């Protein structure tokens, strides 16, 4: 499927500081796309380029198969990392105001917003002032104002920060729901668990460069590098000879409680695992055999340190 958003060789320099250096990425339509990177890597600048808030020095941004224009930003819902709501304004009035700013009629906006407020448990706060809300509730209001006009593309900057685990889950469900109803979601985060759980694809930006891009499953499998964790009981020597020529040992074996031993092994890329399992099964009591898929957290740290 054609990507909803394509970023081609975008660079942006602020006075004496390169925020983005030749960054390219493609966001597949209907996906949840994670934009990862350490603090100050250039994520927010990239988001601002997409939002047409910052004009890149060079490079192009394509939205729906045309170069993005100022009018396109109204089809993008953006929740900035630094949340902003008018503190003195009543919650409901404010939500209606933002919805109308994005082209909804007052009647539509009010109806839709009441649905959202009910769903996220905010109904009784409709007539309260924003400054009376807790941080989490203000976040929810901000989330609702971002999505209520049903934009094609949603961009969330750190959507889970400031939420307790229950509300994080609630929000996760809502984001997945939005995706299922046809929206494409880009979100930037440091929370790698949430990336594993809900992202289809990611781009990892470090020091203004795109250093890693692609589907999450593929990236993790690749980063694993065909290593496996084997748990067995039996003779270590026999274990070693039985895999000889088929796989190589990584590190030393480790004794486990209950007389089991655990060993990491590496199997040459593209080769079959069945001969290895067969040989082991004959010589030792095989307890488990499992591919090591690194967590996004590991991948993030290794990639940023240049060890991937």
């Amino acid at each position, binding site marked *: 499927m054609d990507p909803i958003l394509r970023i081609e060789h975008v660079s942006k320099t602020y006075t004496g500081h390169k925020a983005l250096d030749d960054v390219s990425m493609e966001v597949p339509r209907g996906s949840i796309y994670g934009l990862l990177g350490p603090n100050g890597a250039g994520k927010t600048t990239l988001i601002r380029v997409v939002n047409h808030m910052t004009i890149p020095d060079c490079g192009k941004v394509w939205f729906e198969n045309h170069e993005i224009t100022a009018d396109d930003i109204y089809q993008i819902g953006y929740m900035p990392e630094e949340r902003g709501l008018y503190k003195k304004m009543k919650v409901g009035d404010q939500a209606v*105001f933002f919805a109308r700013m994005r082209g909804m009629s007052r009647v539509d906006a009010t109806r839709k917003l009441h649905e959202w407020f009910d769903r996220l448990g905010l109904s009784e706060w409709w007539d309260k002032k924003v400054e009376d809300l807790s941080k989490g509730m203000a976040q929810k209001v901000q989330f609702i104002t971002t999505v209520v006009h049903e934009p094609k593309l949603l961009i969330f900057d750190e959507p889970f920060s400031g939420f307790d685990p229950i509300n994080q889950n609630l929000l996760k469900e809502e984001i997945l729901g939005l995706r299922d109803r046809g929206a494409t979601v880009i979100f930037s985060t440091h929370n790698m668990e949430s990336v594993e759980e809900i992202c289809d694809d990611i781009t990892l930006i470090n020091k203004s460069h795109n250093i890693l891009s692609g589907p999450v499953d593929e990236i993790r499998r690749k980063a694993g590098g065909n290593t496996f964790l084997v748990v067995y009981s039996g003779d270590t020597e026999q274990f070693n000879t039985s895999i000889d020529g088929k796989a190589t040992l990584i590190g030393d074996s480790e004794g486990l409680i209950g007389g089991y031993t655990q060993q990491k092994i590496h199997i040459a890329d593209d080769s079959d695992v069945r001969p290895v399992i067969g040989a082991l099964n004959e010589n030792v009591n095989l307890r488990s055999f499992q591919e090591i898929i690194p967590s996004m957290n590991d991948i993030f740290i290794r990639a940023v340190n240049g060890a991937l």
Partner: protein
Amino acid sequence: MSNKIGLIVEREFSERVRKKSFIVSTLLTPLFMIAMMVLPSVLMLKGNSDTKNVVVIDNSPNQFVGKQLTSGKTVSFNLLPEGEALGKARMQYKSEYGILVIGSDILDNPQNLQLILNDASSMSVEENIQSQIQGILRTERLKRYDLDNMDQILADANVRVNSLQTLKNNEQEDDSGMERTSTTASWAMGLILGMLLYFILIVYGQQVLQSVIDEKQTRVLDVMVTSCTPFELMMGKILGIAVVAALQIVIWAVLVIGASAFIMPLIAGQADMEAMTAAATAAASGSEFTGVLAKFTSVSYLAGLFLELLLYIVGGFLFYASMYAAIGSAVDTPQDAAQFNGIIMMPVIVAIMVMMSVMNDPNSTLVFWCSMIPFTSPIVMMARIPFGIPVWQVAVSLVVLYISFVLMTWIAARIFRVGVFMHGKKPTWKDLGAWIKMK
């Protein structure tokens, strides 16, 4: 007007009008204004009783000066008998306001005149004494020529012109329908309106500044700039606050007029009111105000004048508000705004100074150009318009003013767009220039 500007205006208006501070200031300011109106009158009435007592030691022949000095509201004279010693008087009359010492050769040497004070000096007392003595000496010197009917000549020569009728040339042979004009009244009216505009600029201009800074401090702008253009945002804010200002001023006008008609007599008390009315009548008699009242009875003239002045007040506010918006866009905190604030006030002060000079010549080159330049035109024109100036000048100046307003709002929007992403860094003038040019 785009739908979004309308929405922002609506939000800005409804939020402000519902604030407690709006309601409080709307109700309290008229009270303050009425107090300002009542107090001077009350003080004036009180002040009249405070006559300064001056003891006079007159060494002139036959005390001819001292005998002719007349006591009035300002000064009351107490002429001491001939030959009174100054040293003794200085000790004896130390509780009086002062001692006036008139030299024996005063007629030939008018400088031989001293006022020894026990109290702070007062310009009105000095003026009173000087002018009285000047009159006395002039009369005495004329008398030295020993003409026959001296008294009659003097009385006849004492003429005053204080009611010059000024009329606007109607460029017709028939002199009916020529409008009366009045320099003093026109100028006073312009001055009052100019001050009103100045007041509006300071109070509501600051609100625009604050509003733009708030937008940045609450970080709403990230959301706003993805919903509308910065120009729409700036325009919406300026117009929204303008509507609030208009509403508040109308309420004030109604309250003050209502209060002065019904409440003031009650507060001031019947007796005081009568005294005040008497004082006001006395002040106005012989002045030009009666003529001016006649002029202002023409309804169409009044309506036209009001419309023109209104256009300037609105235009002046909008233009200055857009400058405040530009400053708000460039800075993060009201403290940072202070360094730019002076820049805004400078043209206002210049305008007020030029406005003062309008009375001398409402069509001088300086005044003309200052009434064309948008920075000064709203205030200077306030003073010029009542004098009756060509329509084309008003038209050109208004067009320039309103175009400048839109242009300045556009500049504010540009600065805003860039300034948004420059948190924590105070911009220099060079930065601002670069931001405006930036794509």
